[in-house]
């Protein structure tokens, strides 16, 4: 239920989370709302805040709980990496920010962009945010561009969708952007259809389109996964550079810890729809606390290796149409305890937070505590 | 009329998949068709009057209890004539498609399976026939052979052979290079065993879907040919011919035009519904619903 919150809001957040977990699976409680406002006054306002976000995909016979109570705050200007195996809900979470989930997806909780809730925002206003203040780069450049349109126009139309500029001006700006993302001779390529470009070049076009209106927040969903290894590094460098130059906040979704190590400031680890650990990159790699995070890092052949892939953790991801109660990692966890049937709250750990009972419960006393928590429900 | 809609079935089923009813609509189609076939078979029992009995007292007689569809310009009972007309319509529709399948499926199998020059030559020939508008091709053939019901059947079958061949060929191409077919080849399975075991089961679904759609159009084409005087000849009870004969008295006796037309539409509808149902059950992923 509850997941790591920001450091400053931790105490309140934890309380809210725990209560929520013990009593019902109800969405946001009053106290956690207070928690975030406290945070806002304490430090710089978070640019993006998730507050107990849940996403359920309603199917004909079953409902899949893809995101289960994620709370998280992104600080303005940081690069936040969100890692996890495929199907852990990281893409769903980013699509929820964009408001691009299919109709059968039901979102609850709050996603606040600069303090304003996106979930309840009218569709028109939300559209105007997309591609303007908040942009997104997709995974596969081969399919994220419209194959029937010239690449230049696909950048220019993004500008014209948000600014009242002439065709001419949009074109000039698009040419500038294409040059900025490293397309050689943009004027000559402007009218090319996407299939004349290599994968790396196409991803540059996608990035140019995403940056067209100088967004404050960029979501990048596995932006390098579909590319060749040598190109991956180039695209990552480009993203890091652009992020600096435009002063953006970046939410980078990846299953590649190497990518995280390379460009992220902080990392969130997701497992089966829950956010299990949040920490600064150095801390996560040096002292991972959640058993899942540890397993992930151990699965890397060498921690130094740049492009280590995940998913070599023993066991299987639970079926999200019938998720286990409590911690969703418990079935693969070497430290499973009875108390794990109750959702652990986010607990501060160094400069980050961990949602695991190991943090709060001494192994010897956990049976007792589980009874207490169970009794409260 | 002849929309080529190849349906690709990529599943690896060894057994020939049995057509399911295809949902409510498919079921409705089968029921309507069943009733119509019964009507055609039992026409001599069901028809209240003779199809050729000319009754001077009932020229343009309006529908009543004993003549539910009214009477035509010669006082003949439209209802009885419609019942009998279904015999010609349905047998020409079904017969022409069966004939086209008998010729087209082997052509498609051979072309798709053999590939190379065989494929090229066969498909060029097929493309040439497809370069003609279907009805024009039928009319050209009738121009050569002269009008008549059997000629109409033959003409429609000839139009359909290339369509059938194309549909079968495209589904053969889908399976031909599948690993399990290549594996069977490597194991030394005979061509016939591969065709029967792997290729045919995958080709049959799309072929059946196409067949039901083609039967629907066969009914329209046959009626159109008769309407133009190029199909069945008077005094045969035939739906298109009845429409042609009654057209001059449209405002005087609209029932002579309304009921045979409805009869055509109903049988076409039945085949179309069956086709949609088959399409769905063979290829549930297809979005064309």
């Amino acid at each position, binding site marked *: 239920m509850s997941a790591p919150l920001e450091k400053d809001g931790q105490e309140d957040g934890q309380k809210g989370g725990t209560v929520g977990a013990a009593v019902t699976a109800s969405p946001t409680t009053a106290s956690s709302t207070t928690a975030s406002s406290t945070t806002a006054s304490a430090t710089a306002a978070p640019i993006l805040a998730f507050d107990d976000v849940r996403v359920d995909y309603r199917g004909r016979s079953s409902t899949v709980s893809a995101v289960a109570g994620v709370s998280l705050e992104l600080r303005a200007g940081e690069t936040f990496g969100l890692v996890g195996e495929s199907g852990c809900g990281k893409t769903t979470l980013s699509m929820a920010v964009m408001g691009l989930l299919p109709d059968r997806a039901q979102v609850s909780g709050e996603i606040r962009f600069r303090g304003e809730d996106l979930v309840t925002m009218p569709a028109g206003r939300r559209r105007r945010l997309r591609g303007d203040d908040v942009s997104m780069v997709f995974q596969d450049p081969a399919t994220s561009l419209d194959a029937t349109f010239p690449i230049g126009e696909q950048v220019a139309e993004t500008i014209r969708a948000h600014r009242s500029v002439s065709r001419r001006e949009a074109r000039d700006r698009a040419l500038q952007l294409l040059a900025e993302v490293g397309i050689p001779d943009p004027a000559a390529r402007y009218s090319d259809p996407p299939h004349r470009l290599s994968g790396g070049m196409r991803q540059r076009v996608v990035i140019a389109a995403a940056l067209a209106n100088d967004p404050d927040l960029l979501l990048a969903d596995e932006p390098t996964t579909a590319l060749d290894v040598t190109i991956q590094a180039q695209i990552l460098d480009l993203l890091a550079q652009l992020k600096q130059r435009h002063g953006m906040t970046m939410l980078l979704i990846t299953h590649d810890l190497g990518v995280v190590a390379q460009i992220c400031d902080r990392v969130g680890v997701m497992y089966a729809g829950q956010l299990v650990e949040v920490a600064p990159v150095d801390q996560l790699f040096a002292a991972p606390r959640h058993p899942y995070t540890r397993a992930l890092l151990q699965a890397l052949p060498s921690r130094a290796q740049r492009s280590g892939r995940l998913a070599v953790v023993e066991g299987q991801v639970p079926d999200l149409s019938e998720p286990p109660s409590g911690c969703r990692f418990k079935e693969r966890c070497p430290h499973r305890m009875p108390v794990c049937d109750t959702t652990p709250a986010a607990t501060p750990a160094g400069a980050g937070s961990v949602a695991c009972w190991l943090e709060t419960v001494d192994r010897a006393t956990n049976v007792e505590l589980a009874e207490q928590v169970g009794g409260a429900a | 009329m002849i929309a080529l809609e190849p349906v690709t079935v990529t599943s690896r089923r060894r057994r020939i998949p049995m057509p399911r009813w295809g949902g409510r609509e498919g079921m409705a189609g089968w029921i309507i068709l069943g009733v119509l076939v019964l009507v055609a078979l039992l026409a001599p029992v069901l028809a209240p009057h003779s199809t050729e009995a000319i009754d001077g007292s009932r020229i343009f007689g309006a529908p009543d209890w004993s003549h539910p569809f009214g009477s035509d310009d010669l006082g003949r009972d439209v209802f009885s004539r419609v019942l009998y007309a279904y015999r010609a319509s349905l047998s020409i529709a079904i017969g022409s498609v069966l004939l086209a399948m008998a010729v087209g499926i082997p052509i498609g199998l051979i072309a798709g399976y053999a590939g190379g020059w065989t494929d090229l030559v066969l498909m060029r020939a097929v493309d040439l026939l497809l370069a003609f508008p279907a009805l024009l091709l039928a009319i050209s053939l009738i*121009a050569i052979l002269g009008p008549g019901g059997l000629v109409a059947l033959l003409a429609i079958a000839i139009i359909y052979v290339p369509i059938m061949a194309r549909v079968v060929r495209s589904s053969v191409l889908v399976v031909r290079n599948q690993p399990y077919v290549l594996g069977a080849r490597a194991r030394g399975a005979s061509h016939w065993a591969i065709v029967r075991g792997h290729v045919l089961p995958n080709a049959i679904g799309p072929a059946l879907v196409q067949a039901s759609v083609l039967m629907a159009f066969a009914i329209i084409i046959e009626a159109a040919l008769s309407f133009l005087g190029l199909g069945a000849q008077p005094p045969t009870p035939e739906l298109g011919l009845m429409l042609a004969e009654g057209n001059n008295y449209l405002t005087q006796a609209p029932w002579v035009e309304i009921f045979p037309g409805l009869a055509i539409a109903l049988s076409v509808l039945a085949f179309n519904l069956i086709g949609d149902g088959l399409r769905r059950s063979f290829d549930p992923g297809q979005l064309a619903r």
Partner: protein
Amino acid sequence: MTARLAYVGRRILLTIPVLIATSIFVFLLIRLVPGDPVQTMLGIRATPDNVATVRAQLGLDKPLPEQYWTWITGVLHGDLGQDFISHEPITSLLGVSLPITLELTVLAMLLAVLVGVPLGVLAAVKGRWTRRISGGFVVAAISIPEFWLGIMLVLLFTGVLHLLPPNGWVPITQDVGLNITYMILPVLALALGQTAYLLRTTRAAMLGTAGEPYVAFLHAKGLRTRTVIYLHMLRNASGPIVTVAGIQFGVLLGGAIVVENLFALPGVGRMVVGAISNRNYVVVQGGVLVIATLFILVNLLTDIVHGLLDPRVEEAVAR
């Protein structure tokens, strides 16, 4: 741009063998008539002299390849032979009838596109009920033969409402308004089935594009839903739509034959059918050749349009 030109050129070249094969088929049309075609044409009362004259006129006394060569050379020079009843050149008959057939079919196709495509888009993007209703409309509309629909339209608009003339024709050069008045019912009769086909094709093609990642990216760029649907998705869906429209034009030409006969429009279809009953084979030949060629050219055109709308096509052909 050069890739496009190459694509168009290649596609035109591919059409030539088809045209040649078609011409051979049409040429053989007369020669395939069982028995003596000239005797059949002229009837029993024809004198041997008559028969010999017509046979010589058609060149039937020469070997087949030579006959074909003479005939095709004539065709390429605009000589399709002579109607042996009226002694008019076939080309001048076609000069009258072809524009009528073209007007009828082009108007019907235009109507079908203008109604069917937007409805198909709507059926794809709106809710379940729109989808169901449009599904019902499609299956009903394609089940109604165009000539019966035509008869029912006459019954309604002439018999009951007295709004329109039942049949007949006035040259467009004489009176445009009257010409259109006579065209309304034939066009409607012809267009309904086509509308249904285009609706179905459009709906399927639009649904096919809906799940593509690029559509999500277009939304992510903040484009209006309208722009995403009508500018991007529709253009991506245009391939199947244009292709089906091209194939359906052949159906339309076939349907026109029947509709022209029903509404007494003196188009090519009526000319051909009338000629068949008169065993006027030269006229049949000319009419069939013209309609078949027209269909081949329409298919060429749709392929070219498809290539222009979707740049991937030219690439696929070039490979």
